[in-house]
C-alpha cells in the first residue's frame, strides 16, 4: 500500500485508509481513483499529488542553467510603478500591524497613485497570463530557489515556497478555465487568501489556508460584479 502527498497543501492519501466519507474504500489503489479527483483539503487536482517514496533520497532541484544566468544578468531597471505600488501597499499593511495609522494611510495613498500609473504592457488575455505563469514555474521560481538556497536566505525561501504553491494552483485553475469557461465558477464561489494569495474554488473556504495556514477569516471571497 502506498501513500501520495498533495504538493500544494501536504494532505496525504493513504491507499490502505482510502477516504470512506467520499466513497473511496480502504484499499483503493491510486490509479483506480478517477482523474477528476481533487484534494479534499485544498482542491488541487490529482496530477499535483506525488508518491511518497520513503526509501528515496531527498529531492534535488535540477534547473536550466541558462535560465539562472539570464535572470541574474537581466538589467536591473528602475522599479516600475506596479512594483512601487506593491511595495507600498505591503508597507501600509506593515504600518497597520505597528498601529501607525497615519503612516498606513500615507503608504496607501502612494500605492494608489502608482497603481493608477501602472498599465498592462500587452493587451493580455488569460491565455497570456497562463504563458507567463508557465515561465515562472519552469524558470523564474527554480532560479530564485537556487539563489536563495545558496545564501541560506530563510525569508526568501519561505516566500518562494508559498508563491510556488499558489502559482501551481493558479495554473491548474487557468487550465481548467480554458477548457470549461465560465461554467467553472457559475454555481460556486471563489476565494483568495489575503496573506499568501492562494485561490480556492468551493462553497465555503477551508478552515485554514492550505498553503500558509492562516485561519479562514483571512480567506476572502471575490464577489461577482
Amino acid at each position, binding site marked *: 500500500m502506498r501513500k501520495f502527498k498533495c504538493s500544494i497543501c501536504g494532505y496525504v492519501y493513504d491507499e490502505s485508509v482510502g477516504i470512506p466519507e467520499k466513497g473511496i474504500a480502504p484499499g483503493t489503489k491510486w490509479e483506480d481513483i478517477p482523474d477528476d479527483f481533487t484534494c479534499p483539503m485544498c482542491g488541487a487536482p490529482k496530477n499535483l499529488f506525488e508518491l511518497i517514496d520513503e526509501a528515496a533520497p531527498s529531492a534535488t532541484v535540477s534547473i536550466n542553467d541558462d535560465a539562472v544566468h539570464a535572470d541574474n544578468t537581466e538589467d536591473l531597471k528602475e522599479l516600475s510603478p506596479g512594483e512601487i505600488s506593491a511595495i507600498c501597499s505591503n508597507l501600509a499593511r506593515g504600518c497597520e500591524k505597528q498601529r501607525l495609522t497615519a*503612516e498606513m494611510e500615507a503608504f496607501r495613498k*502612494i500605492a494608489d497613485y502608482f497603481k493608477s500609473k501602472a498599465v498592462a504592457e500587452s493587451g493580455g488575455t488569460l491565455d497570456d497570463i497562463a504563458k507567463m505563469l508557465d515561465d515562472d514555474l519552469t524558470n523564474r*521560481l527554480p532560479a530564485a530557489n537556487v539563489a536563495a538556497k545558496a545564501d541560506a536566505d530563510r525569508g526568501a525561501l519561505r516566500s518562494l515556497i508559498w508563491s510556488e504553491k499558489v502559482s501551481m494552483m493558479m495554473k491548474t485553475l487557468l487550465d481548467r478555465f480554458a477548457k470549461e469557461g465560465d461554467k467553472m465558477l457559475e454555481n460556486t464561489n471563489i476565494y483568495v487568501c489575503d496573506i499568501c*494569495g492562494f485561490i480556492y474554488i468551493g462553497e465555503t473556504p477551508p478552515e485554514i489556508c492550505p498553503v500558509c495556514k492562516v485561519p479562514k477569516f483571512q480567506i476572502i471571497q471575490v464577489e461577482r460584479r
Partner: protein
Amino acid sequence: MPAYRNIRLCSKDCLCLYVCPTGATDTENSIIDVTKCIPGCMACVNACPSGAISMVPGKYPPQQPKTEAVVAAQRALELSKVQQEQMANAIVVSSDSAVTRQFAAAIAKSNLRMAEDILRESGYMLPQSDKVRELLEAMLDNTAPDFPKDAVELLLNQL
C-alpha cells in the same frame, strides 16, 4: 513600548482594568490609551488570561542583509507577478462576462499578494528600513501635480 489589545482575542475578562496603575486600559473603545500607558510596564500583558495584550516594540531589528543574486532572482519573479496582476486587472475592466471578470479579479489579487510577499522578503519588510527611506527620498523629485508628495513627506518625517 506601549501595550496593545487584540480585540479578536479579548474575551472581556477585564483583569487589565484592575492591574493597570494609570487606567490606560479603562477605555470605552477597547483601545489602550497610549498617553496614559507606562512604557515597559507589562502589568496588563501578564494579567490577561486570554493573552490578548502585547507590547508594541519601540524599536525594530535592522533589515537582514540580502545578496544581489537573491534580490535579482526575486526581482525577475516579482516583476512577472506584477505584470500578470496588471493584465488580469485589464480583463476585469474589459470583459463582457461577469464570471470572467470575477475570475480575473481573483487572479489579480493573488498575483498582488505574491508580489507583495516577494518584495517584502527582498528588503522592504520594515517601513523603518534604509531601503524604504531611499525609495521615499527618490520620490521627492516627482513633480506630477497629482502626486501625493505630502504623504511622502509625512513618512520621511515620522518613520
